[in-house]
C-alpha cells in the first residue's frame, strides 16, 4: 500500500487529543478559547496537508509514513482513501468553525476539552476502516455528549437508550459476521444488525428521537458537532455497503427516503429554531443515505457530493443559529425577530447556507442534488420524485426560518449584535467554500466520481455481493433490451 510523505493521519488525530490535555492544564483562563481555536486550526492544516499529499500520490488508498502506534495496533489501522480523504478536512473544518463561533461568555458552558476529544475521535473514525477499532471509535464518540448531558444535569435516558442499542447492535453484528464468515447465509443476520446500528446512528425514522433530544438538552455546539460530520453515513459505507445484498440497500434507501420527506415536513411545523435545524439536518442527511444506497456510480457520486455540501452548508446554517442563540437565548420561530439590521452579515450567511443545503444553483449543493436525483430517477423514478419533494419542503423551511429570524419586526435592541471577528472569519471561510464549490464544481465531482467508482468496484469484488451485483446487471440488461424492443 502506498505511503504518505508525513504521518498526517496520526498527527492530526493526536494534536486535538494533546490539545485537550493542554486545555485541561490551562484551566479556566481567559485565553483558553484562543488556544482551542489554534489547536483546531493546526488540526485542519494537517488534514488539508494529508489531502494534498494523498492527491499527489494518485492512489486509491494510502497509510502513514511512520506509524507511532505500530507497537499498539496492526500496521493498516489508519488508512486514508478516496472516501475519507475529503471527509477528514471537512470534519476538522466543522470543528474549527464551531469553536471559532463560540462566544467567550459561552465558553464555560461548551466544554472545549470534550470538543477536542470528540474531534480526535471523529478524525480517527474517518481514518479507520472496517474493524473492531472502527466499532470501538464509533462507540467511544458517543461518550463526550453523554458526559456533557450529565454535567448539565439533564435527563440522559433517551440518549443512553439509543446509543446503548447502537453499541450493542454494532458489537453483536460484527462479532456474528466474524463468526459466520464471508459466504455464510448467517452473514445476512449480521448485516441486518449492523444496518440497524448504522440507521440508528444516522437518525433514520423512527429511530431519530435521540437526535431531537440531543438538540434539546445538549449545548447547540455539541449537538452540531455530533451530527453534522455524518458519522452514521460513514458507518454505512464501511460496515454495511461492502457486504449488504441489494434488496437490503434498497430497504435502507426507502427508509432514508421516508425520513427525508418526514424530516422536511416536520422542519416546517417546528416553532423553535434548534428543532427546525435538527429536522432539516435529518432530512438532508437522509438524502445522502438515499444516494449511498442506490449503489450506482451516478447516485453514489451525488451522495458523496451531497455529503460534503450538507457538512459545509448545514454547519454554517447551524453556527449562525448558534451565534444568534448565544446572544438572545433560544430562537422562537412562532414570531418574527427582525434581526437583519443588527446582524447583516449573519443574515446573508444564513440565507446562503440555507440555500446551499437545499441545492440551490451556484452553491456547492446544486450539482450534488442534481446527480443524486438523476441517479435516483435511473433506478426508480418515484424515488427521484420523493427526493425533489423533500428538497422542496426543506426549501420552504429555509426561507421561512430566514424571514422569521431576520425580518418582519422593528427591532429595538440597543446592544450591538454584529458578528465578532472570529465569527466573521468562520463565515467567510464557509462562504468561500460554498460558492467556490458551487461555481467550479468539476474538480470536486470528478474526485467524488472516482471514489464512487472505486467503492462500486470494491463491492463488486466482494464475494458476498459479487453474485447479487452480477444478477442485478443481468436484470438491468434484460430490462434495457425489453424497453428497446
Amino acid at each position, binding site marked *: 500500500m502506498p505511503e504518505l510523505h508525513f504521518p498526517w493521519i496520526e498527527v492530526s488525530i493526536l494534536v486535538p487529543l494533546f490539545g485537550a490535555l493542554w486545555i485541561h492544564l490551562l484551566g479556566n483562563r481567559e485565553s483558553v478559547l484562543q488556544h482551542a481555536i489554534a489547536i483546531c486550526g493546526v488540526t485542519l492544516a494537517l488534514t488539508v496537508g494529508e489531502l494534498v499529499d494523498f492527491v499527489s500520490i494518485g492512489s486509491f488508498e494510502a497509510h502513514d509514513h511512520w506509524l507511532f502506534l505500530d507497537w499498539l495496533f496492526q500496521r493498516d489501522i489508519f488508512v486514508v482513501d478516496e472516501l475519507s480523504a475529503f471527509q477528514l478536512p471537512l470534519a476538522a473544518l466543522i470543528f474549527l468553525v464551531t469553536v471559532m463561533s463560540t462566544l467567550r461568555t459561552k465558553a464555560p458552558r461548551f466544554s472545549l476539552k470534550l470538543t477536542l476529544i470528540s474531534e480526535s475521535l471523529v478524525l480517527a473514525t474517518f481514518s479507520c476502516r472496517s474493524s473492531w477499532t472502527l466499532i470501538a471509535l464509533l462507540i467511544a464518540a458517543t461518550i463526550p455528549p453523554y458526559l456533557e448531558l450529565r454535567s448539565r444535569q439533564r435527563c440522559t435516558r*433517551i440518549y443512553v437508550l439509543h446509543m446503548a442499542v447502537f453499541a450493542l447492535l454494532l458489537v453483536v453484528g460484527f462479532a456474528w459476521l466474524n463468526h459466520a464468515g464471508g459466504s455464510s447465509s448467517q452473514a445476512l443476520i449480521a448485516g441486518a444488525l449492523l444496518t440497524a446500528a448504522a440507521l440508528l446512528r444516522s437518525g433514520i425514522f423512527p429511530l431519530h428521537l435521540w437526535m431531537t433530544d440531543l438538540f434539546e438538552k445538549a449545548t447547540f455546539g455539541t449537538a452540531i458537532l455530533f451530527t453534522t460530520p455524518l458519522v452514521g453515513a460513514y458507518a454505512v459505507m464501511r460496515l454495511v455497503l461492502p457486504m449488504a445484498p441489494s434488496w437490503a440497500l434498497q430497504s435502507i434507501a426507502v427508509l432514508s427516503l421516508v425520513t427525508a420527506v418526514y424530516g422536511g415536513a*416536520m422542519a416546517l411545523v417546528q416553532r423553535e429554531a434548534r428543532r427546525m435545524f435538527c429536522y432539516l439536518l435529518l432530512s438532508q442527511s437522509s438524502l445522502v443515505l438515499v444516494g449511498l444506497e442506490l449503489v450506482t456510480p451516478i447516485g453514489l457520486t451525488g451522495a458523496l457530493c451531497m455529503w460534503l455540501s450538507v457538512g459545509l452548508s448545514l454547519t454554517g446554517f447551524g453556527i449562525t443559529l448558534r451565534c444568534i442563540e448565544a446572544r*438572545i*437565548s433560544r430562537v422562537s420561530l412562532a414570531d418574527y425577530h427582525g434581526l437583519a439590521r443588527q446582524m447583516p452579515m449573519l443574515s446573508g450567511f444564513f440565507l446562503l447556507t440555507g440555500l446551499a443545503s437545499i441545492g440551490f444553483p451556484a452553491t456547492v449543493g446544486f450539482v450534488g442534488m442534481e446527480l443524486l436525483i*438523476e441517479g435516483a430517477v435511473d433506478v426508480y423514478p418515484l424515488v427521484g420524485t420523493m427526493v425533489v419533494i423533500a428538497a422542496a419542503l426543506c426549501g420552504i423551511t429555509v426561507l421561512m426560518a430566514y424571514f422569521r429570524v431576520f425580518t418582519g419586526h422593528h427591532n429595538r435592541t440597543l*446592544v450591538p449584535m454584529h458578528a465578532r471577528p472570529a465569527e466573521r472569519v468562520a463565515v467567510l471561510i464557509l462562504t468561500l467554500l460554498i460558492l467556490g464549490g458551487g461555481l467550479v464544481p468539476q474538480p470536486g465531482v470528478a474526485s467524488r466520481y472516482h471514489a464512487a467508482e472505486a467503492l462500486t468496484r470494491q463491492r463488486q469484488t466482494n464475494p458476498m455481493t459479487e453474485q447479487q451485483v452480477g444478477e442485478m446487471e443481468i436484470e438491468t440488461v434484460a430490462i434495457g433490451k425489453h424497453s428497446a424492443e
Partner: protein
Amino acid sequence: MNYLDTTFQALGTAVVASPAILLAILGLAALVNWQLSEATISRLTQAAVLFSLLPAIGILVIMLATGIRYVPIELGNWVSIPEQEFHFHLKFVFDRLSIPFLMLSCVLCGVVGAFTRRYLHREEGYRRFFLYYAVFFCGMVLSSLAGTIEALFVGWELVGLSSALLVAYFHERVNPVRNGQRVWSIYRLSDAAFLIAALMMHHLSGEGDFGGLMSSGVWPEGTAAISSTEALWVGSLLLVAAAGKSALFPFSGWLPRAMEGPTPSSAIFYGALSVHLGAFLLLRLSPILDASLTLQLMVIALGVVSAACGAVMSRVQNDIKVSLAYASLTQVGIIVVEIGLGLRYLALIHIIGHACMRTMQLLRAPTLLRDYNELENKIGTRLPHQAWAGAASLPASVQRWCYRFGYDRGFMDLALDKWIVRPFLQTFGWFDRLERRITDSISHEPSRESDRAEPHPEDLQNVA
C-alpha cells in the same frame, strides 16, 4: 470556426456574461460589506443591461442579414462525467423565441433600473434591491437563452428566489414578509414539478438539450421526440410549473400579494416578466404540447379559467396595483389559450406587447392615483365610473356571487389553505405531539426546553 461563428460566440458570451458579472460585483460587495454608492450601483446596472442588450441586437442584425435562424452558443460543460454520459452543458440558443424574449427582458429591466434609481433614492434597502435585481436579471437572461432544460431550471430558480425576496423587500413589516413566504412556497412547489418534468424528459430522451427533445427543426417547427402518453405526463408537470410561475388558476393567490413589494419590482417582475415566464416555458416546449391532444385541451382549459377568473377579480379590487395584477392574469390566461391553440407567434407578440404596456401602467400607477386625487379635489366630486353593461343582464344572485368571488380573489388562497396547508399542518402537528409524548414518557419529565422559547428575547436587552 469561421469569422461569423467567432462573432456569434463573442457576442453571445457577452450577453450571458454581462448579468453574471453584475451579480458577482454586487454579491461580492454585499459579502465583504463594501458600501458601493447609489450612483455606482446604478451605473453598473445600466452598463450590464446595455452590454447584454447591444450584443443581442448585434446577433439579431447578423441573423437577419445572413438568414441564419438558429445560433447556438456553446460554453462547454460546467460539470461532466464522460463515463456515465452525465453532463451539465452550458449551451445558449439564439432563435426566434429567445431573441424577442431576451430583448424584452433587457429593455424592461433597463427601464425599471433607471426608474428605481430615483424611486428608491436614499432608501435603506437600495443596495439590497439592486442585488436582488441582479439575481432576477441574471435569471431572466439564463431562462430566455437556455439551450438545455437544466440551464432553464437554473434561471427559473434565480427568478423565483429574487421575486420572493423582493416581495419581502420591506423587512420591518410582517405583511410583506408573509407574502414573500407565500410566493416562495408556491414557487417551490412549481419548481419541484419542473424539476421532475425535466428529469423525466432527460430520462426519456437521454439528454436535456432542447435540440434532442424536439427531434427535428428549430423553434417553432420542432417535433417532440417522445410518445403521446409520455408527453401527457411530462406536459402535465410542466403545466403545474407554468401555472405556479405565471400565477394561473389555482395559484393566482400569490399575484396580489406580490404587489406588496416596491412599485418598480411589482411592475417588472410580477406585472411584466415573471408572470410571462410560465407562458415562455410552454412556448419553448410547445412541441410537447402538440404531441398530445388531451394536453392541449388541458392548456386551453387552464388558460380560459385563469383569464375568466382574472377578469372578474380585477374589476372588484380596491387597490390599483392589485387590479392591474389581475388584469395581467387575464392577458396571461389568453396567451396560454393561444399557446394551447398552437398560435405561437401570436402568443409571443401578445407577451411582448402586454409586458411593455403593463410595465408602463404599473410604473404610472402611484402618480396616477395622485392625479386622480387632484382632479377629484378640483371638480369637487368623484370621477364617474362606468359599470360593465353586461353585468346588468345577470341575475342579482349571480352578480353578488361574482362580486364575492372577485373580492375574495377566487377563494383560491382559502382553498389552498383549507385543502393543503391545514391538513399538512394537522398531520405533522400530530406527529410532533406523538414524538413529544414518547420522549416525555421515556424521560419521565417534560422533554422539550424549546417550548419555553420567548417570542422576542432580543427586545429585553439581555443579549450577550
